[in-house]
């Protein structure tokens, strides 16, 4: 028994073993699925109808990217896993999404900050993956890149409106930045300079600033999550786990 516990992975939790190419595809699919789920929680609860529709549409884009990538991952893996197997039948430790996207909704400003940080990252990511040797991944990236530009227009213009708006909206946007900043090192790691430059540009226009607390947390890409992902999955996967194989 003593041999079994010599591992960096907590006992009882399987490590995620995916070959690197598959791991990349699943990581990006997971980011998009989890963020779609968070954005979907806004439907019927947004500050006004246009924002409700916008957040719902952005969620649908992310969900569509996730579905295309899971289906592709299933083909690459070639073990018969479907998009639903990836989305609905994996545990928390098997999800490889960034910690930022699983953070629960607080208020509209917090959601905009989360979306903005992610949109800047995805803009850079899709630019990069468009030239991937993996043709399907490149095709998904070429389309997602144009969608990410629409999302960025929405989130960055709201960053400016909130940050440079009323005392209340500014305070809420800054609180969003302060609470989410700790998840940005993990997010910006592949493109640290470009990410920072773009974020600083919008901070400059909106009167917002990085959090004073430099603490950073990471682990999402290795399957170590904040306490919020488990609860999100419990809700999202409930139907499929309760009624296995259910179809509509």
């Amino acid at each position, binding site marked *: 028994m003593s041999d079994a516990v010599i591992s960096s992975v907590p006992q009882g939790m399987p490590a995620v073993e995916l070959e690197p190419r598959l791991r990349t595809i699943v990581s990006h699919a997971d980011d998009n699925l989890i963020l779609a789920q968070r954005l979907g929680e806004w439907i019927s609860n947004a500050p006004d109808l*246009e924002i409700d*529709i916008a957040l719902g549409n952005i969620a*649908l884009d*992310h969900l569509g990217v996730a579905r*295309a990538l899971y289906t592709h991952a299933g083909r690459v893996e070639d073990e018969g896993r479907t998009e639903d197997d990836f989305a609905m039948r994996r545990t928390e430790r098997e999800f490889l999404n960034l910690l930022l996207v699983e953070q629960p909704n607080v208020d509209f400003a917090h959601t905009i900050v989360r979306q903005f940080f992610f949109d800047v990252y995805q803009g850079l990511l899709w630019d990069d993956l468009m030239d991937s040797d993996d043709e399907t991944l490149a*095709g998904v990236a*070429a*389309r997602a890149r*144009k969608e990410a530009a629409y999302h960025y227009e929405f989130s960055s213009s709201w960053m400016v409106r909130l940050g440079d708006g009323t005392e209340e909206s500014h305070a809420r946007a800054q609180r969003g930045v302060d609470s989410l900043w700790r998840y940005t090192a993990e997010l910006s790691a592949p493109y640290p300079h470009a990410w920072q430059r773009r974020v600083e540009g919008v901070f400059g226009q909106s009167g917002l600033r990085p959090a004073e607390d430099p603490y950073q947390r990471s682990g999402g890409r290795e399957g170590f999550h904040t306490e919020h992902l488990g609860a999100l999955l419990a809700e999202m996967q409930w139907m499929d786990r309760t009624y296995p194989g259910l179809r509509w």
Partner: protein
Amino acid sequence: MPVATDLRSVVSSVVDPEIPVLTIADLGILRSVALDGDHVVVTITPTYSGCPAMRQIEDDIADALRREGVESFEVRVTHNPSWTTDWISDEGHRKLADFGIAPPTDMSEVLCPRCQADHPKMIARFGSTACKALMVCSSCREPFDYFKRF
């Protein structure tokens, strides 16, 4: 025995469930219809990642083929090259405008589909579906959908 060209016209007549004046051929979604013996392979490219109509379109293609007595077929989805609004045909542009939706073009060239006035105002970047923005005409004051260039 089905013939590929006939089947192409059958599949081409499937319409977009959200914009029923447009066929999937007008939209540029339909990439190919090929015959492999008796087996029909239809290849389509999804529009927006989040377009909920894609599943419906796959089902409608299947129904159209079954009505023609085709039993052995598959609908393949390809992501590369990725779809762009440039694939919407001229006929598609005309049908969209007639239907009251401003077809995709540069924002500076969007015309009100009702009175042809230029420089409408954007009300919401995300409209009734993912592919459309909500506009209002600066002349006749009527709101209308604009199919976003993509």
